């Protein structure tokens, strides 16, 4: 049973009716097959129309959809011989960020990303994709390891943000994020990021200060969650819908602002309705970008990456 979002209710009702009809006895007077196909057409059209004009707030909900493909789904399909590597070598292993060696399109690569989990048990195991300092320190370690062997780095970003906890603060959450950003900007190997769901604040940029940033059509990338922004600026968490609009956190807006380089279209009805197609589309976009920059000398890559960020913010939205 798929999880329907609030704004998908009309679609859910149609789908429900179709299900009912399918279970009816076939020897009635009305032609059930005809009726089903009519309703299906209607449902498909409604889905297409709804997703063609998602509001920013609706995109926030799609980006957080529990059935969206997550890091491990991508690694399963796109990465051959994926070999996760654990631990930050200081304190602990943080399962909110997974990273390891593997082969992408024939190239050995370091693949790192947030994993949110797919059911209660795995969500708890991965702390809902909210990393502690150890996660960022592990990422830093793995990026340096990749650099030592001249391997490209691929990061998949999907986090509500870094974990806000007493222990995380005590062990230097801010410092861990800052150093992770620093290493992203320093490595002399290709670094490509894909925002696959939620690009939440410092927890996201810690892995996304990259040569190229790709973003899924309904993913979001923001300095703060709409709810957090609403409660601070509007002093009312209920204003999250307005905040989502004001923050310009959608892929098309970020493309226009020059923050990201490419938007990957999602299947009709969002990534959650067709994981395979979504993963394939991301793989294709990644491969194209990787082939563009894999031959570039490390120092040049690093200089261009820095230039890319220094150039940001010169233009606003039209």
């Amino acid at each position, binding site marked *: 049973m798929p999880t329907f979002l609030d704004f998908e209710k009309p679609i859910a009702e149609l789908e429900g009716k179709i299900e009912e009809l399918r279970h009816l006895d076939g020897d009635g007077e009305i032609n059930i097959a005809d009726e089903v196909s009519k309703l299906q057409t209607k449902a498909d059209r409604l889905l297409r129309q709804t997703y063609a004009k998602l509001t920013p707030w609706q995109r926030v909900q799609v980006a957080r959809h529990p059935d969206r493909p997550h890091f491990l789904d991508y690694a399963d399909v796109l990465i051959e011989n994926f070999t996760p590597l654990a631990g930050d070598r200081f304190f602990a292993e943080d399962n909110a960020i997974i990273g390891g060696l593997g082969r992408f399109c024939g190239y050995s690569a370091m693949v790192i990303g947030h994993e949110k989990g797919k059911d209660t048990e795995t969500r708890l195991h991965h702390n809902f994709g909210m990393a502690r300092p150890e996660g960022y320190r592990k990422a830093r370690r793995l990026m340096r390891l990749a650099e030592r062997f001249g391997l490209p780095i691929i990061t998949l970003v999907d986090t509500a943000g870094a974990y806000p906890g007493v222990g995380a603060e005590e062990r*230097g959450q801010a410092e861990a994020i800052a*150093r992770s950003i620093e290493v992203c900007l320093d490595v002399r190997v290709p670094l490509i990021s894909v925002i696959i769901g939620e690009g939440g604040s410092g927890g996201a*940029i810690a892995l996304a200060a990259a040569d190229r940033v790709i973003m899924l059509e309904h993913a979001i990338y923001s300095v703060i969650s709409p709810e*957090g*922004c609403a409660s601070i600026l509007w002093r009312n968490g209920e204003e999250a819908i307005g905040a989502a609009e004001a923050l310009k*956190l959608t892929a098309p807006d970020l493309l226009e*602002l020059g*923050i990201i380089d490419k938007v990957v279209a999602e299947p009709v009805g969002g990534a959650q309705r067709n994981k395979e197609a979504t993963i394939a589309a991301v793989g294709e976009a990644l491969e194209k970008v990787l082939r563009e920059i894999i031959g570039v000398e490390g120092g040049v890559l690093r200089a261009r990456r820095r230039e890319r960020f220094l150039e940001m*913010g010169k233009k606003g939205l039209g």
Partner: protein
Amino acid sequence: MNWLTNFVRPKIRALVRKEDVPENLWNKCPGCEEMIFHRELAANLYVCTHCGHHLRISAEQRLKMTMDDGEYQCIELPETIVDPLKFRDRKRYTDRLKEAHNLTDMQDALVVAHGKLGGIGVVMAVFDFRFLGGSMGIAVGEGFIAAARLAVLQKAPLLVFPSSGGARMQEGVLSLMQMPRTTIAVDEVKEAGLPYIVVLTDPTTGGVTASFAMLGDIAIGEPGAIIGFAGARVIGDTIREKLPEGFQRAEYLLEHGMIDMVVPRKELRDTLIRILGLLRNPTPAAEIVPLTPSEAPHLAAGNPKNKNAGKKREENPTADE
């Protein structure tokens, strides 16, 4: 300069400015709530004379009390795009900016200046919390980069005094991008072999802490300063338990190994001068060793050609200094 600072600001200021009417002569300490006479407070570097609470101070006050003889030159911040997202919450962002300009007479939340500290040329980038909570947007990021480049150009150490709630939400993801941008600036200073010193003042939180503020070669906290990534309220809501005593205070960070030292404001200038001296003048100060006549017969006092030889050497002690 743009129309905001050139046109709107002077007009509004002309309307609201009162001519030299003394403001409140007494300040209430936010720590102990005692009243302190303003002159007494200023003389004590805005540290409460009753409880030692370090009050937040403006960028100007900070520069005056830190630089030699209170002298320094500010540089104009690079011009940047204003309100790139056309952001509006309960108020327009442009209106919030205007209010902040009027309140502080500043371009944005950062002041960049150069001057001398213990005789050593330094560049200082100082945040002012009064300007939209010292938040970091494009203008602050550009100013920070300008400060770093000025430091590299002048071969001077960069000293940064953050006092900031974090990223400026009204600039959306563009403010998030100031984290990598300021990090690049820090690395430019470090790659030039110059000291990068951060004095974390109250408060230093969010995206500011998670970028340049935690990358100092030396990290100094001011007593009692709140320093952290997530806000205490957010953490409290998440874990639903009482936060430990002194959580996220400078002393707490020191105890957890996150900063090098906590230094009271009164000792800060001397501490900075000592550190800069140690980093900038790493070799022993050269001693003046008089040469014996046999080593340098041409310098011997008896040689009529060298009447002023000894004197000259004193004026010209060593190449090291």
